């Protein structure tokens, strides 16, 4: 069987497995709905009396997408790796022609599909409920795809180095939540203490949020990077970060116990 055949088999198995976990499907798509209901209600109300959530609804679309893009792969891949370890599935797969990289590619494809659907749901809800203006831009699809690659890699690392599904999910939440708020998503750099700045610049999600905002929000004031259009430059930076994250993730998947 060719590599394409192996990937097809793995993607098919993963996709069917996901669809048949009803609670997983339900909460995967409930998450963006709740996110938008809560944040959509906050946006514009200026509850802090300061500048929090004071931007127009369209500004936060990048943040909504970032939430799904970071939480879903981290928790799904992390727990999937742990589940595979518990069931000796990697031990079995290590004796088949499927490589660790192919396994992670298949997981990434499934996650990209799941997140793609969740992303469409987010865009539809944001436009319908908040009246946000969103520019259709194919670059947003590229951002989602590259970010999924990046965070699937990180999720694989978490799943490989935690000793259970619970541990993987806890670790992914511990990483995803701070990352979400330190990545220029809902809070700008100016709203954070200065010492957070290096963390913000190190987070791959920062480049996702800035790039998606530059590509999809007409009033975005995202700075160019070295004179390059921010919608493109941030995608390049994200891709540069995604490659090592994916490679390390694939390498960390256990072939031996």
């Amino acid at each position, binding site marked *: *069987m060719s590599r394409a*055949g*192996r990937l*097809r*088999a*793995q993607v*098919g*198995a993963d996709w*069917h*497995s996901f669809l*048949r*976990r009803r609670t997983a499907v339900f909460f995967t798509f409930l998450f963006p709905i709740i996110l938008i209901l809560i944040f959509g209600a906050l946006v514009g109300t200026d509850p802090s009396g300061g500048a929090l959530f004071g931007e127009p609804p369209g500004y936060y679309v990048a943040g909504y997408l970032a939430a799904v893009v970071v939480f879903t792969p981290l928790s799904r891949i992390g727990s999937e790796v742990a589940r595979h370890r*518990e*069931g*000796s*599935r990697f*031990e*079995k*797969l*290590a*004796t*088949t*022609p*499927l490589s660790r990289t192919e396994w992670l590619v298949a997981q990434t494809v499934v996650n990209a599909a799941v997140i793609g659907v969740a992303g469409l749901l987010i865009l539809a809800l944001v436009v319908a409920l908040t009246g946000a203006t969103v520019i259709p831009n194919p670059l947003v699809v590229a951002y989602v795809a590259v970010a999924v690659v990046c965070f699937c890699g990180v999720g694989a690392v978490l799943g*490989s*180095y*935690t*000793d259970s599904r619970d541990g993987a999910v806890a670790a992914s939440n511990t990483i995803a939540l701070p990352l979400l708020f330190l990545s220029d998503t809902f809070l700008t750099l100016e709203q954070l203490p200065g010492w957070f700045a290096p963390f913000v610049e190190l987070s791959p999600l920062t480049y996702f949020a800035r790039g998606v905002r530059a590509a999809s929000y007409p009033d975005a004031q995202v700075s160019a990077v070295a004179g390059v259009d921010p919608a493109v430059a941030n995608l390049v930076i994200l891709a540069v970060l995604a490659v090592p994250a994916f490679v390390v993730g694939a390498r960390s998947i256990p*072939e*031996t*116990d």
Partner: protein
Amino acid sequence: MDAVVVADGLEKRYGDTVALGGVSLAVEPGEVFGLIGPNGAGKTTLVRALTGTTVPDVGSASILGSEPTAVDRDRLGVLPQRFSPPERLTAAELIDYYAGLYGDAREPGEVIADVGVAGAADTRYEDLSGGQKRRVCVGTALVNDPDVLFLDEPTTGIDPAGRRTVWRLIEALAEGGTTVFLTTHDMAEAERLADRVGLLADGKLVAAGTPGELIAEHGGPNRLTVETDAEPGRLEGVSYPVEGRDGGLVVEGVEPAEIGDVVATLEKREVPYTGLTWTEPDLEDVYLELADGAERLRTLRGGGPPPGGEDAVEPTADGGETTPDGGER
């Protein structure tokens, strides 16, 4: 002819625990090699070392002349001991999935029928009985029609009829030239299927040979068990060793033609008895003779079973060790 599976001085330690203490063996083409041994003897660790899913500290292994990690995986079939495939897929989907990973797989429907779960092909794995689950797992190891097949306790949890289905399947594969490396706790399984049997105890291969050779060398004499409450002294003077055990008197070394002599002695000395059972030694006697000694020694030393409760120790991410049932030590 070159051996298909070779282990040369394999050693593996987990912390202070020796899982493999220098195991060497060779399995010839088309041979069924059965590995028996008590829980924690190192059987699963040996299978892992041979299939490249654990790295030995010392020694080397090869399959089909290649290092285990370099072997053509289309020619290799493996059933890990604790394997649990994606549980939301049906039996047919699982076989189809694993078939899709190989270059030239068998027709999934045939495999499903071979392992005897055709009637449950559309049932999700999570809804199958324990025996059906294990048979599906066996199917995933056969789906690529491998030249070398490793089965780590393939019939655990399978009912007697299902076990025989798997046995017939393994026999058919062996007749077709497949080399099979099988671990089991079922002595009848090893005796029926294996051309040669190896007994692993405390990480060492303490005996290997055909079942007949092992029984002749380690199985002990024939036994006539007399069901009685009488003391061994009532048979004093007979020309066979007599012991009081197993709820009666065990007279050793009695050939079938000599049973009448013992019965005559019982009658003559008016020893009351309710039954007689004559048994030849079998592989279980070999196991008890060789492995039980190791177990007793371990108990006397005050140690628990070595690695893993069952057969292996698994290092955890934090450097601890996990037993096969998921507990940690």
